[in-house]
């Protein structure tokens, strides 16, 4: 298992999760957990995903998600989980 965190931030609109999930399914990325919240009027979604079996390399994945975000009008980031784990867990 190779876990990464995908975050989506922006104005809420129809089909955000659908579009992101479609991309993930096409690239063999399993979703382990999804949560979302509204912070200062902005839609915040976090997905924990398994990127251990991806069909593209990680660079391509982050670039693709970023451009997908641009087409929807939200910011999408994909980061390896360790940065959050190291910062918030001892």
């Amino acid at each position, binding site marked *: 298992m190779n876990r990464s965190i995908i975050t989506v931030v922006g104005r809420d609109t129809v089909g955000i999760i659908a579009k992101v999930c479609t991309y993930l399914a096409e690239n063999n990325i399993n979703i382990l957990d999804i*949560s*979302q919240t509204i912070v200062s009027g902005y839609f915040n979604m976090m997905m924990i995903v398994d990127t251990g079996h991806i069909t593209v390399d990680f660079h391509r994945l982050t670039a693709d998600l970023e451009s997908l975000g641009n087409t929807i009008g939200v910011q999408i*980031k994909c980061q*390896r989980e360790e940065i959050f784990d190291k*910062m918030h867990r001892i």
Partner: protein
Amino acid sequence: MINISEVIETNRMIEKENLDVRTITLGISLLDCTSDDIATLCRKIREKIVRTAGNLARTADNIAMEYGIPIVNKRISITPASIIGSAACRTPDDYVKIALTLDKAAEDVGVNFLGGYSAIVSKGMTASDRMLIMSIPEALARTGRICSSVNVGSTRTGINMDAVRLMGDIIRQTAEATRDNDSLGCAKLVVLCNAPDDNPFMAGAFHGVTEADAVINVGVSGPGVVKSALESVRGASFEVLCETIKKTTFKITRVGQLVAQEASRRLGIPFGIIDLSLAPTPAIGDSVADILHEIGIEKAGAPGTTAALALLNDQVKKGGVMASSYVGGLSGAFIPVSEDQGMIDAAECGALTIEKLEAMTCVCSVGLDMIAVPGDTPATTISGIIADEAAIGMVNHKTTAVRIIPVIGKTVGDKVEFGGLLGHAPVMPVNRFGCEDFISREGRIPAPIHSFKN
């Protein structure tokens, strides 16, 4: 499992509060490059740097992308060049050839600075050390990426006042040699006391002879994150203030530790240390002076500044030490004037003087850093300033440094633009009374007594 608020907090630090890894510095020993022929020496230096650091920049960029954390600088530190060149160099010009080789190698491997054009002369100078020091003005004028440092004293050895006197002259000559560029050469030249062997930050970085063949050192940053955290505890007690700084620096340092371990693993080079630093940049919101303001000081330099800085420096270390397996370098809060918008503002409005900065250096991680002074400041006065800082370091068992820029053709009230991370600064007034008779004495100041601590 990580929750959404933790993810949002981390990404807010990176996107809104300028959290970054300031530098991955690859220390490279050049001891195995020595030769008595200058051409052979330069060829071996180049080969070793390209071989060892060839993947540094790309690896750092990959890590930055995968974790979503900016890694601002990729740098190299080398064994002090005075040692490497000692068998081959017969004149200062030979040392300049080494500088040009290093500059080209740094450019080829894609690093923005290479440190270690240095001499360690805390007790005495060899002929090679003197030649290297004499070559510094030309070396810095003819290169873009080379940083130079000279260690003139230590708690164990005292202060080499012959080197202090010489460095006053060398700083002036470097200013003259780069006068068309606001004396920029001096921004890449630092005079140290108690210089650490593993400092990843420029201009004082070099790879000490106590170090392994190659090592990864990482400098973290994040003044904006600390300031932002303190905004939520305005008016709270010192206990709450200190706890907040500690918790924040713990988080910042953990990111540095992650990046250092990952870089070490990918490059196959051992991890050395994390430098726990609050290193400001001229960007708005990335200022140590702003943290002091948030602690309750109207402007950096006002009464209370030294105490607030002491508190900040100590809490940074306390929070950071537990976050990293190995801590070293300078570790603490940096107070460079030109690289910190809050410090620039304080200097411009008269709140901050060189004398107050000197007091602040007693309790923070470095010394008088990136200070522009009038171009007609005498060499002996610069030496006097260096001696004062070295004395603070020597007596207090800490690193101190002077990176001062006598800007040729400019005087108090003028502004200087260094560009990029080096920032801009007002020319600050220097005490106009002299110390020529003191500086012209030969020899060294003896080491301080190490007993009778009461």
